[in-house]
C-alpha cells in the first residue's frame, strides 16, 4: 500500500534545478532509504514531502505529491501535514528547555493541555525511543546537557509524541558515534511496524542493514529505485554499481 505518490516533481532553489522529474511511490510500514553523493537532491526531496522547503528562500516546486491520495501542496493545512509527517534532522536540535517540555511541546501545540495526559505521552514516547530508563529521573533537567546520541533519540521521541504516520530522517546518525548510531538503527528497525520511515543516508552499510527499499539519486534524478536486496547485489544501472562499490564519492 502506498503512502507517498510522487509524479513529475521538479524543484528549483533560485535558478538551480535541484530535482528533475521525480516519479516514485513510497511503501507504507517499511523503511525506504535515499542514497547518493552530496548535493544529489535526496535531502531536497525529503524536505518536499513535509513542505519544510517552504521555509527555504526562493524555492519553487512543480508536479504533485500525494500523501495517502491527498495532494500535499493542495489545500491541506501545512501544520497538520507536518504533524502527520514527523522529521528528525542531521544535527540533533532539542529545544533549550527541559527534557519534559521538549517532548510535550508537540502535543501542547496540538491542543493537549491536561498534565495527566501529557505525562502519559512523554513516558510512552521516551519508552518507544528506548531512552526512558536513561532519562526518567532527569525529566526536569535541560535537554542540552544530554550526549549527542541521547539528544537525537530525544528528538525522535519528540517527533513521535505527536503520533505521526510517517517519520522522515535526514542523515540522523552522521553526527553521532558508532555506538549511538547502532542504537538508533536498532530503534528504527523496532519502529518499522508502527511508522513508515524514509531515511536519507551517506552510509551505504546502514541503508543495506535497515531499509527495505532503496532509491539512488544522482544530479537530482532517481537513477534506480528497488528492493534493497537486489539493489546492493545486482544493481541494474552501471552508475549505481560504481557508487555502491565506492568508485566515486
Amino acid at each position, binding site marked *: 500500500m502506498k503512502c507517498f505518490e510522487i509524479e513529475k516533481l521538479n524543484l528549483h532553489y533560485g535558478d538551480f534545478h535541484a530535482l528533475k522529474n521525480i516519479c516514485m511511490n513510497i511503501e507504507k510500514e517499511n523503511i525506504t532509504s535515499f542514497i547518493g553523493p552530496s548535493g544529489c537532491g535526496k535531502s531536497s526531496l525529503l524536505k518536499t514531502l513535509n513542505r519544510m522547503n517552504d521555509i527555504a528562500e526562493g524555492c519553487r516546486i512543480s508536479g504533485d505529491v500525494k500523501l495517502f491520495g491527498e495532494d500535499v501542496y493542495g489545500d491541506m*493545512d501545512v*501544520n*497538520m501535514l507536518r504533524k502527520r509527517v514527523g522529521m528528525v534532522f542531521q544535527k540533533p536540535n532539542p529545544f533549550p528547555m527541559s527534557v519534559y517540555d521538549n517532548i510535550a511541546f508537540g502535543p501542547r501545540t*496540538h*491542543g493537549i493541555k491536561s498534565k495527566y495526559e501529557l505525562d502519559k505521552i512523554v513516558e510512552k514516547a521516551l519508552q518507544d525511543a528506548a531512552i526512558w530508563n536513561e532519562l526518567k529521573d532527569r525529566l526536569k533537567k535541560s535537554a542540552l546537557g544530554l550526549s549527542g546520541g541521547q539528544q537525537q533519540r530525544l528528538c525522535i521521541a519528540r517527533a513521535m509524541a505527536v503520533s505521526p504516520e510517517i517519520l522522515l530522517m535526514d542523515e540522523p546518525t552522521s553526527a553521532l558515534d558508532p555506538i549511538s548510531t547502532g542504537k538508533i538503527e536498532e530503534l528504527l528497525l523496532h519502529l518499522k511496524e508502527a511508522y513508515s520511515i524514509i531515511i536519507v543516508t551517506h552510509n551505504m552499510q546502514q541503508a543495506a542493514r535497515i531499509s527495505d527499499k532503496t532509491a539512488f539519486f544522482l544530479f537530482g534524478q532517481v537513477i534506480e529505485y528497488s528492493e534493497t536486496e537486489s539493489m546492493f547485489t545486482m544493481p541494474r544501472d552501471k552508475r549505481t554499481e560504481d557508487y555502491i562499490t565506492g568508485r566515486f564519492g
Partner: protein
Amino acid sequence: MKLKNKFYERIMAMLCWSAALSSVLALLFIVGFILVKGLPHIKPSLFSAAYSSDNVSLMPALVSTIIMTFMSILLAVPLGMFAAIYLVEYAGRGTLRANKSVMLIRITAETLSGIPSIVYGLFGLLFFVSFLDWKFSMLAGAFTLAIMILPLIMRSSEEALLAVPDMYREGAFGLGAGKLRTVFRIVLPSAMPGILAGIILATGRIVGETAALVYTAGTVAQIPKNPMQSARTLSVHMYALSGEGLHVNEGYATAVVLLVMVIILNIASAKSAKKLAGGA
C-alpha cells in the same frame, strides 16, 4: 483545536504588524512634526556668524558642537581603543589574574554606560568645574563627554577586534612580527571600519547630549575663542531657546539641523559598518 492554532497565528501576526507599524508611525510623526514646525524658520539669518538676542543664530552653537565633538573624540578614542586592544590582545586568555582584571574592566565599562547623563553633568560640575577650577568651559564639557562615550567606543572597538580572524595574527606571528607590530599593522587596519562605526555612534550621542553639558560647558552662545571659554552645543542651544520662550520657532529650526546631523551620522556609521562586513 485546529481553529485555535489558526486564531493564535492570526492574532500574533496582527500584534507584530501593529507594533512595527506604531514604531514607524511614531518615528514619522516626530520627524514630520519637527520638519513642519522647523523648516519654515530655516533662514540664512539663522546661520549668521554672531549670536545676538535679536538674531538668534545657531552658528556659534554649531561650531561649538563640532569643536566639542572633536575634543571628546580626541580624548576618548585613544583610551577606548587601547583599552579594547588590552582586553582582546593582551589580557592573558587563561591566567586567573588577567581574567579577574578583564572582568573588573568589563563590569566597570557596563556600569559607566548605564549612568544617566544628569549624574555625569553633576560629576563634571563637582570635579572639572569646581575641584579642578576650570569653571564653565569647553574643556570641562569635553572631558565629561569623553568619560560618557568611553565605554561605547571600548565596546565597539572590542567587537571589531574580535571580528578579526585569528589566522591574521598567526600569519603575522609566523613571519616573526612582534605583538605590537601585528596589532598596529595587521589587526587594527582591518578592524578600523568597526571602530569607526563606534566613533560615529558616540558622536551621535554627543550631538544629542544636553543634561551633562549644561552643568559643565555652560550656556554661553558665542563662538568660544579658547577651550577654557564656556559654549553651548546645538542641543543645549535648543534647550536654552525653549527656556527663554522668545524664540521657540528658532528652537524648532535647531531641531531640524540636529535631525539632519543625526541622519548624516547614521548613514556614515552604516556605511563603515558595511565595509567591515564586506571583508577586512
